[in-house]
């Protein structure tokens, strides 16, 4: 039987593609910038070969903690916003904690992002993991010296 109470109601306000938190990080991305080679303890250049997005990430590590992080991005709003959120989540974390950050954590911090934009959040966390690996490599090679 037709259930009138289940009928879809008309949307009350314009439906935005991204939620306000995503828009906020997109329009005011946190931790945008670069670090010189001397400043940075880890660096990564990560691309999404499928969609063509690209990002650069720099981390500064002191007593095993990410004390500073900077990024630049050639990407869509999803990529810019999730990269920004990733830097916020990573900053101040120990390397051990930071490496556990996943794209799901970024998505959760936003309270969700559109389904087909979820892949964008991988770029940021992949970049973070790559920069941490770069840092760890440098640590190893300097210890050898």
């Amino acid at each position, binding site marked *: 039987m037709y259930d009138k109470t289940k009928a879809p109601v008309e949307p009350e306000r314009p439906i935005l*593609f991204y939620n306000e938190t995503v828009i906020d990080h997109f329009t005011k991305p946190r931790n*945008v910038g670069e670090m010189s080679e001397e400043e940075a303890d880890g660096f990564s250049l990560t691309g*999404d070969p499928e*969609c063509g997005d690209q*990002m*650069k990430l720099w981390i500064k590590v002191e007593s095993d903690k990410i004390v500073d992080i900077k990024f*630049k991005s050639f990407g*869509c709003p999803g990529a*810019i916003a999730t990269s920004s959120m990733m830097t916020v989540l990573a900053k101040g974390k120990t390397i051990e904690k930071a490496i556990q950050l996943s794209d799901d954590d970024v998505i959760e911090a936003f309270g969700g992002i559109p389904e087909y934009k979820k*892949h964008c959040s991988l770029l940021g966390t992949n970049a973070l993991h790559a920069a941490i690996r770069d840092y760890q490599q440098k640590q190893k090679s300097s210890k050898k010296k």
Partner: protein
Amino acid sequence: MIYLDHNATTPVHPQVVNKMIPYLKQNFGNPSSFYRIGREAKAVLENSRRKVALCIGADADEIVFTSGGTESDNLAIRGVVRALKNRGNHMISSSIEHHAVLQTCFALEKDDVRITYLPVDSEGMVNPDDVLKSITPQTVLISVMYANNETGVIQPIKKIGTIARERNIVFHTDAVQAVGKIPVNVSEINVDLMSISGHKIYGPKGTGALYIRKGTPMIPVLTGGHHEHDLRAGTENIAGVVGFAEALTLATESLEHESRRLESLRDRLEEGVKQRIEAVQINGRNALRVPNTTSISFMSIEAESILLHLDLKGICASSGSACTTGSSDSSHVLLSMGIAQQVTQGTLRFSLGKENSAEDIDITIEALVEITEKLREISSL
């Protein structure tokens, strides 16, 4: 709001709405019915057909009303290929067609139709010599769009039509982005089939027509009752047809003045962007274009990011690409022109229309200056 996406769709002209309303309210009859309101509907249907025919230089019985550009393209291509399947199984189209044509071609390829997709030059133009070289004894249909939806580049339709007619090959053109923007007359361009859409010319969505030159072999796609000369079954969308005919008439009557106005606005936008913003490229600029369309590439930033910033400022434009589910859906049109993938990713289309003013253009230029600066600061390229 500043709406600069008229190649996507247009607001319905108030005069069109007024013409339609009686056919949604009191004059609701079915044109196939015997009694008076049915015959009234039939009369207005045929009158609308004459109005549409007059605008494009056709005879009334050469107009078949459809649900829009996509259906017209499907009917033209599938209808002819099926009707001529005993004569040949080869068709020629281009690499820059709208998806309504391209996807129809892809579907036909699965049914063993061989299709040649013509390349375009760096300005986005098909070369008629390539058409000539691609013709085989098996070729039954050529389908090349009149004006491209992304760049506005006008194709050499008359030349291609002449080549087709001399060889008795059926020629279809998707004129959805040309009609109402430039003068289009079927008697001057040697086309056998031409697709038109209502909602691109300030008419209602879900309306359009296919011009079918007398004697063109054609098998219907939609079968049912004896509507539209037995070529398109289904009770006619009378209010829609009335609105479509009125919209086309209004567009045709105002075309000369409006196309000049839009061209000067489009030039104002292009000049402003070029003067104020570094590293931009206007695609197809050296070709003949419809007056309302421009395709602009902004180096080292992504179109979707520009679009969202524009949207937040109340400006509507579109991109030829979108990054969806992990794949870059780059514009096949821009890629065909030899534009690098990364550049296509930063390309926007602005398509102007009736409500736009010089002030709208100036506001848009200011917005683009600010947005590109902001995004380039973030860019890793």
